[in-house]
């Protein structure tokens, strides 16, 4: 028996644990990633292989180890202004549209769901910072959540490696919004303070993440099973004001799911929460 087939059952158990806790699915042809992702933890705890790791997880009640294992298996890939076109759509069209609707209250609430290591909410914060003259007397709230505590800790610090900082970020924004500290780049306090980070599991209901005007949930549900996706869409819809907008990742859609969203006619790639009372079926 070769090494791969030996480790397959352990991989399956670990993938099952990940899905149960987070909704993220790892398909069988990507099981090889599990071992790579968990190697640092196995080294740290002196655990020889995945079978032994599963044995430890099953025999010891260690929430910390389990959390570490799940965190390590999560896909936290991110970049600043991921999909430049979509951010430009937000800045030039979607946000101005919402702002018009909110002209009397001058309040804007945005949720970056699945914010990973913070690049997405900080991109939003930079967008507002660079048009600060427009938003002077506005109350802009950017709430960023992720299931991974490690990712959130990283995000809160706002310190990025050379490799991360130039992923999607223009040199102009890099110089304006970051300080160089050795070989890393640290986001300036005025931008950092615009984002509020907190932990959240998209598949659990939460009563206080509500009344948003815009929700970004990009490249998150693509890792979910269809059922989990459905659940996540419902949760995201509940979090939006009627008429509020949701933006998904470039490869994601709500089409094919029975949701409270309709495809935005004005903003390509955005979804709108149907106003209250509008029937789900298309009227004749």
């Amino acid at each position: 028996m070769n090494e791969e087939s030996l480790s397959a059952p352990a991989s399956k158990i670990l993938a099952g644990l990940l899905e149960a806790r987070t909704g993220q699915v790892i398909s069988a042809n990507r099981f090889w990633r599990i071992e790579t992702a968990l190697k640092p933890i196995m080294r740290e705890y002196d655990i020889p292989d995945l079978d032994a790791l599963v044995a430890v997880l099953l025999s010891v009640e260690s929430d910390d180890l389990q959390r570490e294992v799940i965190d390590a298996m999560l896909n936290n890939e991110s970049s600043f202004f991921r999909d430049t076109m979509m951010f430009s759509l937000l800045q030039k069209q979607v946000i101005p549209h919402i702002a018009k609707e909110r002209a009397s209250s001058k309040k804007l609430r945005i949720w970056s769901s699945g914010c990973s290591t913070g690049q997405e909410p900080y991109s939003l914060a930079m967008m507002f910072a660079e048009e600060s003259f427009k938003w002077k007397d506005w109350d802009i709230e950017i709430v960023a959540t992720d299931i991974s505590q490690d990712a959130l800790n990283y995000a809160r610090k706002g310190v990025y490696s050379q490799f991360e900082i130039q992923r999607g970020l223009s040199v102009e924004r890099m110089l304006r919004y970051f300080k160089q500290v050795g070989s890393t780049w640290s986001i300036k306090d005025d931008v950092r303070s615009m984002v509020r980070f907190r932990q959240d599991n998209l598949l659990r209901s939460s009563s206080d993440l509500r009344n948003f005007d815009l929700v970004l949930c990009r490249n998150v549900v693509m890792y979910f099973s269809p059922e989990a996706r459905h659940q996540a869409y419902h949760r995201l819809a509940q979090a939006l004001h009627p008429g509020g907008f949701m933006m998904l990742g470039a490869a994601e859609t709500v089409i094919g799911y029975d949701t409270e969203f309709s495809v935005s006619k004005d903003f390509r790639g955005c979804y709108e929460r149907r106003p209250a009372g509008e029937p789900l079926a298309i009227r004749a």
Partner: protein
Amino acid sequence: MKKCLVVDDSKVIRKVARHILEALEYDVDEAADGEQALHYCQETMPDVVLLDWNMPVMSGIDFLRALRTIEGGQGPRVIFCTTENGRSHIEAAIEAGANEYVMKPFDRETLETKLQLAGAE
């Protein structure tokens, strides 16, 4: 097809960059230092220049300053691509007229977005 001049004294880097740029459908030419690059630009002005900093004969920054003064030299989008990663170098490059800045090492995706950000695509 847009023309991109890769200016680097390392043959390996030129080859890697050429590989990435050709996949993005650029017509690629190479120069091994700033002086060669300047001669090239006096003959044929490229649309994009991917520029190393430290090179023998003429450095990247000296090339860039010279390029921006010659006829048609305002046109090319210039992207520095260098191991110089200090803020002062980056600021000097922008001051001299660079449109973007890539710190080595880089990967295909980083270069691709930087080309977009520089308005070179």
